């Protein structure tokens, strides 16, 4: 048991402190190993995806990122990294579809939460643009709908998921799908942060 004293009557602080320290060390080990697995499973496709994204940007394409909850903050981080990377890196057109509370609440209230990203892609998306969907489960209805809309519009589609990929992994699926093989939402998000950082760096390299 990870925290045995949670279930014993009356916890001892020193023992609990020792338990949480050990838990931190174990989980740090988990994420280090998980990144190694991601590199083994997806290294080649990350390079291929970045080359395709660089091609898309070269042809005037723009990046649209989206996700729910914690993944929405990753979507915003990814868009901000492409748009405003700082230093000598090249700024690229990117927009997170969760930024505008007016648009998000209007679509959710008037139509439904499942269209909140798809409708924005219908408004903004052009052939040659890139859609980047971030999910831990791979099952969010609004992400699946948006990836479908993006594919219909001739966009390059990229998906990040966890577990075994969920609905995102069902055919036809996105052009590039990176499934983080873990059942911990937290470790999945940590590895996904590395994945989009790697995609950014390799895209810059390819441009």
């Amino acid at each position, binding site marked *: 048991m990870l*925290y045995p004293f949670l279930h014993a009557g009356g916890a001892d*602080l020193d023992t609990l402190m020792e338990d*949480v320290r050990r838990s931190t060390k174990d989980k740090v080990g988990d994420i280090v190993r998980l990144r190694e697995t991601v590199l083994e499973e997806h*290294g080649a496709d990350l390079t291929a995806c970045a080359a395709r994204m660089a091609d898309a940007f070269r042809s005037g394409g723009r990046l649209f990122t989206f996700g729910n909850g914690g993944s929405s903050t990753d979507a915003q981080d990814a868009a901000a990294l492409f748009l405003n990377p700082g230093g000598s890196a090249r700024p690229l057109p990117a927009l997170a579809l969760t930024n505008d509370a007016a648009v998000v609440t209007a679509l959710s209230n008037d139509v439904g939460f499942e269209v909140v990203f798809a409708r924005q892609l219908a408004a903004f998306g052009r052939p040659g643009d890139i859609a980047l969907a971030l999910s831990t489960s791979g099952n969010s209805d609004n992400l699946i709908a948006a990836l479908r809309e993006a594919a219909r519009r001739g966009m390059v589609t990229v998906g990040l998921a966890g577990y075994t990929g969920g609905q995102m992994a069902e055919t036809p699926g996105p052009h590039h799908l990176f499934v983080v093989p873990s059942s911990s939402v*937290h470790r999945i*998000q940590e590895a996904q*942060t590395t994945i989009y950082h790697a995609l*950014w760096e390799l895209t810059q390299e390819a441009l």
Partner: protein
Amino acid sequence: MTSTVTEVFRRRAEPGAALADDADVIAAACHAMAVRFHRGGRLFTFGNGAAATDAQHVAVEFVHPAIVGKRALPALSLTADIATLTGICAGPGFEDVFAHQIRCLGGPDDMAFGISPDGRCGNVLRGLETARGLGMLTVALTGGDGGALAGAAGHLVAVRSADPRVVKEVHVTAYHMLWELVHVFLEQPEVLNREVVA
């Protein structure tokens, strides 16, 4: 410099593993945060750029836990209110953007959580100093040697990397652990009246 995907991932390994050395700091910070939440304290999170999205991630982690059955705790990101942010920037200025909100929203039972990958964000520093002046608990995530934040926070995790993206990735693990371990302590209220011996 040519980056290959292998090299990009390799650069993460050492700073990622080194977070284990901060297990003591993380445990002590979580105990102190659990004590504050138990008393009704609220968590205010803040940072710039990429760290602004981390601040929002930390807030949503506490308010709406991804793990079913964990209680909702009061946490607010000071980066989310764009009217207030742009209003303060247009008025007193960017340096005051977090400190102003902490002065108006914070109290002595509350907590300030500042994130600055290089430790040199003046507005994060000012936010932490203001919080400390109010008697709030202060926690900071930073990088390198901690920069100016090193002396400004009661609990500090500094990721030893100069690459802001690597620092950010380790911060994500750090705040996921902070969230998880706060709940471990909160579920044992009898340990919340005790002092942690460093």
